[in-house]
């Protein structure tokens, strides 16, 4: 089985600091693969190594079957990169941003114009082709950056936190476009600290924390392996939610105390809630929901994803 990305014991150090601490990753053609983790987990450093703009400090890395240290330009010719911070050209129009970028790949001007027009339609910016970049909204800029990443018809698209900083509506629009790319068979690799984003887009993901991979699988596999089917969220009218932990003992598989609420990990949420009331505990609010990747992360690292 040929992997588009193949990493073994991959390490990235900046001086004394180890950002990526020996990770193994394989990404196959056609899949949407995610790096999930909080800020500082080593996701962006990993992405920069995969994007061949940051040399690995150790371990083995093959991208598209080639060595990033030696074949950087040849690999980058077949990658599409959407960075975390937009670096669109503010002195050019929306259309020129794409055409100019295409030239860096050696795409002839005429072909570049055609491809740029198609892509602008795809990301729903066709009507803004002649506009400068600055007046665009954050969501529009991100869509333009995604279009720019597609200009060379890449085999592999790298998206570093594609919806961070966008409002909910703009996020859904970006997700929808990325989902369309996925359906077209484009291999996507993305980083995110949003569990809903990972659940929406990723076929398979790794959970990163402190430069290491702490779990790997599909969102469903991870939830099944590391969490219960349902979660009951309880808020008690007190400053210290922890005082209730003992009183909840035995209701579910596990009790997790957060600063503002208590989580009960259970098979049957409604049954558990009945038991809570039977013990005459009266939370000011309660909610029964399905387990999510957030719970997986909490279980694996003892911390929440978004601080």
């Amino acid at each position, binding site marked *: 089985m040929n992997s588009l990305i193949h990493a073994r014991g991959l390490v990235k150090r900046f001086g004394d600091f180890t950002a990526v601490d020996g990770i193994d990753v394989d990404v196959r053609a056609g899949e949407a693969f995610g790096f999930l983790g909080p800020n500082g987990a080593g996701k962006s450093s990993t992405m920069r190594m995969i*994007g061949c703009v940051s040399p690995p400090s150790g371990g083995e890395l093959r991208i598209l079957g080639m060595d990033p240290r030696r074949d*950087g330009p040849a690999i980058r010719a077949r990658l599409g990169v959407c960075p975390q911070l937009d*670096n669109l050209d503010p*002195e050019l129009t929306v259309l020129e941003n794409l*055409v100019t970028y295409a*030239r860096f*790949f050696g795409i002839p001007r005429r072909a570049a114009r055609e491809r740029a027009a198609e892509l602008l339609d795809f990301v729903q910016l066709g009507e803004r082709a002649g506009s400068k970049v600055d007046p665009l909204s954050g969501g529009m800029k991100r869509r333009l950056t995604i279009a720019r990443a597609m200009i060379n018809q890449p085999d592999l698209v790298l998206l570093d936190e594609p919806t961070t900083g966008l409002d909910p509506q703009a996020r859904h629009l970006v997700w929808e476009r990325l989902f369309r790319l996925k359906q077209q068979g484009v291999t996507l690799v993305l980083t995110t600290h949003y569990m809903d984003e990972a659940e929406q887009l990723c076929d398979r993901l790794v959970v990163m924390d402190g430069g290491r991979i702490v779990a790997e699988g599909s969102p469903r596999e991870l939830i099944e392996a590391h969490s219960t089917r349902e979660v009951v969220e309880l808020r008690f009218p007190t400053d210290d939610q922890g005082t209730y932990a003992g009183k909840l003992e035995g209701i579910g598989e596990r009790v997790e105390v957060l600063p503002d609420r208590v989580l009960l990990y259970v098979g049957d949420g409604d049954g558990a809630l009945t038991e809570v009331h039977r013990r005459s505990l009266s939370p000011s609010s309660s909610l029964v929901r399905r387990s999510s990747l957030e719970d997986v992360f909490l279980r694996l690292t003892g911390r929440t994803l978004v601080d």
Partner: protein
Amino acid sequence: MLPRLLPALDGMARRSAAVAGRNVAALRTAYWLVLLGGLLEPVFYLFSIGVGVGALVGEIPLPGGRLVGYAEFVAPAMLASSAMSGALTETTFNFFGKMKFMRLYEGMLATPVRPIEIALGELSWAMLRGSLYSAAFLVIMVAMDLTTPLRALAAFPASVLVGFAFGALGMTVSTLIRGWQDFDMISAGMFVLFLFSGTFIPATAYPDVLRWIVEVTPLYRSVDLIRGISLGSLGFVQLLDVLYLLAMLVGGLFVAGRRMERLLCR
């Protein structure tokens, strides 16, 4: 070796051209006003000092003893210093802005473009711009009878070389800059060079030690080269000038490419 090297060089040239092409696309903005400013500056100096002050100075002697009009003496120095300032402006202020504030090079480096190709592309663009200034200024010099058309033609490639050399130097300086405050030092440095590089008075007028310092500065070598051509007083020393500028070009480009790689590909 050669069959492998040629396609590699071809790709390098194409990608560098694409980097320069980005600036052509950006010309439609207010940037062209900056270009016009650079064109007029040496002309203003030529008229105010070369012609204006020149009327008071009269003729001055060249090292060989030949007497020339003051405007004739000053004009080639204005050409050299405008080639310097045009190249330095483009490769320091504009280059730094693109690198740090617009983060343009990060985007470029996600493509097959390499740091050295960005350096080459930006330098070529700076030179295209500088050459236009030089050509326009040489036309003015010929029109004012400060040199002959044939010498002007010969001075043109020399001024392009001056621009290339300073452009490569400027790019290296850009990679060392920490923030906007450092630009004051660049401006000050440029102004000192502009005043004391044998531009307005011959270097022979200085005391020996100062003269020595002046004569190893890059703008002095540039003025010496272009003045030698425009006044038709060429000698071996101009060959030295050319070698000096070539070394500056190659060295600057090499260091800039390496430092960019270290800054951007961490």
